[in-house]
Each structure stands twice: as C-alpha cells, then as structure tokens.
C-alpha cells in the first residue's frame, strides 16, 4: 500500500511538469497582449519598455523556468514566511507571481480572497447534492421500474438537460423578482458577525446553491442507481436474504456499502471541480469566486493569473485522482496493490 502510494506520487511529478509546460505554452501562443488594452496614444518605445518590465522580452524557455521557479520555490517560501512569521532570505525583493492587471497583487493572494465565496456556494452545493442524491439513487434502484424510480429517473434526466445559466435566471425571475423571497445578487462583502447576518447569508445562498445542487445531483443520482442495481442482482444479496436478515440490513449494510465504492471515487474526482468554481453560476449570481476570477483574467489577458489558477487546478486534479485510487483500494478489499 505505502509502496503503491509512493510510486503513484512519483509518477505524478512528471505528469504535473508536463501539464505545466502545456499550460504555459498554450497561453504563450494565445494572441492576447498585456499592452493591448492600454490607450493608443502611448508611444511604441514605452510599450516595448512595458513588455520588458513584465519580462516578456526573454525567450520562452527562460520564462517557463522562471515561472516554475516562482511557483515551486518562491511562492511556497512566501507562504511559509507568512505562516510562521519568520524571515527567510531577502523577502523584500522576492519576485512573486504577480497579477498584471491588479497592480502588483500576488496571484496567490487574489486566489485566497476568492476562495471563501467559492467554498460557500460550490462546496455547499456539492455536499448537499451528494447527501441528497445517494439515498435517492439507492431507493430508485431498490424500487426498480416502480413509480418512484420512474419519477426519479425523469427528474435526473431533466436535471442533466437544464443549462445552469437558464435555470439560474429563471429562479432569479421567479423567486427573486416575482415572489421576492430571496436576494437576486450574492453580496460578497457581507460579514457574518451576528445571527441576523448569518440568516442573510443563508438566504442569499439558497438560489445559487439550489441551481448547482439540482445540476450536480443528476449525475451522482444516476451513478448510484446503476451501481446499486448491479449489486442488488448479486448472489451475496440473495444469501443475505436467505439467512433471514431483514430488508433494512440487507440494503443498508450490504448493498449500499458495496454500491458506494464507485460513488466515492466519482465524488472524490469531482472535488477539484469545486475549486474551479462554478463559472456560469458565479457569473449569474455575481458571486465573486474563483470561476469569476478566471473569466475576468481571461478577458483582460492577465496571463499570470490564468496560468497559476489553471495550474493549481491541475495539481488538485492530479492529487484527487491519486486520492480516488487509494480510496478505491481501501474501500474495496478485492483490490490489492
């Protein structure tokens, strides 16, 4: 087991280096130029100097190595310094990964600013969708082709087919405007310091979380249903029933436990998605999350922000792939490394 994890971590390193190279080269090929949004009256030689100050005059491989150095050495040192309060080396003149448009704010700080909003909205809806969808899927499989199963399946297919940008606007229209129950825009600056503000936070969470949960539930629901269906047909279920165990024990202790093995993997693989932010939903409810940051950075050609966000995302994807594989082995005794 330990050896397997160690081997997987070792293979993850070249994978990540490869991804970082791809991300870097892709963005390097992108036609956008950081000085494109500056006024046309700026003379050419000033533009050249701006590009030089951003380090754009150096060849590609040098810039890539510099970025890698920043990402893996400079940024972790800065983070360590902040955490421990110690001073490591020349912290004043450290070249951190800095956003081009936000005037010298390190990209990591921007990301940390946005993270809470994203975790509130996307994290909460992911949690909710797992908690709701798994029992629904199991019940659907248990009453295979019954009324509940059919209704559940229809709702899942619809949940699959609804674009979040349409449902988002629709719930804003119905519950925000016509009924006036919930705020239509997510207030990011809200500070929770009393029961009243907490209630306000919950109220503004309802609509975006509902839209996201409905969408994410569909996939987990269907996946759980098919996993449980497969298990219900197995011999060990018949054996359990033949032993005289009551239905509840058969379903909960035997079927659900075994059906959850693939579901856990699916859920673990979906977690990096939370950190990508729900780009569309964040746009609609004006949630100032990571997805919104990425879109804003793309629109303003802020290459360091795009690069770093995408790469952090890639790290999470690889990490959770690893976790999913290890979990699979832990949960399923048939799999031995």
């Amino acid at each position, binding site marked *: 087991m330990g050896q397997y994890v160690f081997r997987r971590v070792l293979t993850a390193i070249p994978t990540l280096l490869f991804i970082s190279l791809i991300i870097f080269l892709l963005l390097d090929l992108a*036609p956008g130029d950081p000085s494109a949004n500056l006024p046309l009256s700026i003379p050419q030689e000033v533009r050249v100097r701006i590009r030089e100050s951003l380090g754009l005059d150096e060849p590609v491989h040098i810039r890539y190595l510099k970025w890698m150095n920043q990402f893996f050495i400079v940024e972790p040192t800065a983070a360590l310094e902040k955490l421990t309060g110690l001073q490591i080396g020349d912290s004043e003149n450290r070249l951190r990964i800095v956003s081009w448009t936000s005037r010298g704010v390190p990209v990591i700080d921007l990301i940390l600013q946005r993270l809470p909003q994203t975790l509130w909205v996307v994290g909460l809806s992911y949690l909710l969708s797992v908690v709701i969808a798994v029992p629904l899927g199991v019940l659907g499989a248990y009453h295979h082709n019954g009324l509940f199963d059919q209704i559940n399946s229809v709702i899942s297919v619809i949940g699959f*087919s*609804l*674009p979040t*940008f349409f449902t988002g*606007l629709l719930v804003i229209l119905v519950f925000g405007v016509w009924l006036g129950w919930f705020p239509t825009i997510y207030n990011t600056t809200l500070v929770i310091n009393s029961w009243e503000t907490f209630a306000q936070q919950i109220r503004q969470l309802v609509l975006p979380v509902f839209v996201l949960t409905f969408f994410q539930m569909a996939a987990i629901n269907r996946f759980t249903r098919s996993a449980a269906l497969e298990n219900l047909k197995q011999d060990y279920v018949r054996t359990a029933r033949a032993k005289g165990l009551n239905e509840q024990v058969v379903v909960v202790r035997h079927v659900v436990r075994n059906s959850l093995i693939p579901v856990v993997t699916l859920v673990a693989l979906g977690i990096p998605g939370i950190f990508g932010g729900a*780009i*569309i939903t964040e746009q609609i409810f004006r949630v100032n999350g990571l997805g919104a940051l*990425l879109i804003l950075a793309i629109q303003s050609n802020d290459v360091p922000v795009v690069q770093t966000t995408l790469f952090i995302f890639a790290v999470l994807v690889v990490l959770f792939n690893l976790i999913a594989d290890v979990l699979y082995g832990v949960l399923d005794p048939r799999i031995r490394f």
Partner: protein
Amino acid sequence: MTTSAVTTLPTPVEPIFNTKPRGLWSTAFHRLFHRRSAIIGMIILGCLLFIAVFAPFLATHDPVQSQIGIVDVQKRAAPCIRLFGCPADQPEFFFGTDGNVRDLYSRVLYGARLSLMVGILSVGFAIVIGAFIGAVSAYAGGYIDNLLMGLMDILLAFPSLILAIAIVTVLGPGLINTLLAIGIVSIPVYARIMRSSVLSIKQQDYVLAGQSIGSSSRRILLQNILPNALTPLVVQGTLGIAVAILDAAALSFLGLGAQPPTPEWGSMIGQERNQVFTAPHLIIFPGIALILTVLGFNLLGDGLRDALDVRQRS
C-alpha cells in the same frame, strides 16, 4: 419447400424459428421503438430537425436584420400573436423582439441549425479522433498505450467547461473555435471507450480466426473490430451531443462562443440576461428551445443504451 421425387437427398428440416432471426440493428430498433423515453426523444429531435432544415420557410423575419424603421415597433417588445388577441394596429411578432429589435421567433428557429451543427460536428470530430487514439492504444499496447491513456486521463479529469474555456482563450472566441474546443475536450471519453472495446474484442475467437487465416490487421480492425465497438460509441455519442450543445451554449453565454448577431441560443440568453426583470420572454424562449434539444438527445441516448445493451437482450 418442394422436393422432387427423384432426388435422394433427405427433405430439409423445417427451421425451428418460423420468424427470421433479427440482426443486431433490427433488434435494437425494435427495442428502441418500445421505450417511451426514446420515442419522446425521437419526436423532439424529429421536430427540431424539421425546424432546422425548413427554418427559412418557417421564419417570419430575417433572423439578423433589425426591424427598426421597417415596422413601427419598440425594442424588447412583448410577444404579439394575432391568434391570441394581438391588436391589429401592432406588428405581429410571435416571440416578441430583442434588444436590437430583431424578431426573436425567427432567431430561435435559426438557432436550432447552429446548435445541431455544433453538437453533431464537435462530437463527430471527437469520435473520429478518439476512436483512432483508442484503437491505436489498444492495438499497440505497452509504452504507447500508457502514454496515450495517461494523456487522455489528464484531459478527462478536467471539467469540460474549464478546459473548453482555456482552449477558446488560446484560439480566440468564435463559433468554429468553440466547436473545436468542445471537440478536443470530448476526445478522451471516446478514446477510452474504443480502447476497452478493442481490448475485449481482440481476444474473441472470430478475431483470432481472422488472424489465423492471414487477414491483414487493417482488415481485422475495419471489418471485425470496428462494427462491434460501434454500439458503445453510438450511445455515448448521442449523450455527448447533449453535453456538447450545453457547453457550446455556455461558452456563447459567456461571450466566448458564437458572436452577435449570430442567432445562437446561449448567446441570445447571455446578451439579454440583464433584461430578465423587464423582458423575461427574451430568456425564456431560447432557454426552452435549448432545454428541449438537450433533453431530446439525452432521452434518445438513454433509450439507445437500453436498446443496444447486449447483456440485457433476451
């Protein structure tokens, strides 16, 4: 059967089955037409195809031509239909007009063409490339297999929308680039499916028989393996079109896909999304069209999966 009296051959045994045994596709179609969801899906898609093909005849106005100055009408006018009591002194617009005083009804009709095109072309592109990669991977094995599948796993792990956004950023916004981005993003699914199909079929007796009589590997791949690997690709492809249409609409909604004045549903919703309070019809009609399209492909895909699932066949 008539047998002449002179022949010494024994009379042929009557076949046990009176009906002709059905082939794979015939069985599949038979089963498909007995599934409610598949029928609903096919009806929706049939209507949609009809609308897409005959859009010029069904449309009442030019989808990109602003009606300003041509008829006396306000921008973002509410739907006005003669049949439902639209006063005779007002011009008739079935779904109302949008922010640029264009006829929304005609735009929604033409949108069917774009969405179908984007869905089918991007998935077609992904299937061709993905199936090729999967087949090569399974056939070559070893080092190449590991490399290709590792690459596919990385692509697969990213949420499709984020990856598509990244690709569109590089290629630049536009409909063709959206199509490409969504195509690239969906390659790994088909590569994985093709690889596992080929791996399981490769060991079947009829393939081994083909090899032993000296068929070329190109012939084996095209004649024996491809037809048998096709069913999962078709099922996944149908469901994939639904996802592709949704993603393309999402990109257009964000302003990265189809550019105005192209009548694309996602971009129509995106442009008018701040008017949802005053003119909800501008959101609702393209939204319903989009949902029906995606639902149609999802229902058909589900039906196809049940119909083509070999394990379920009685």
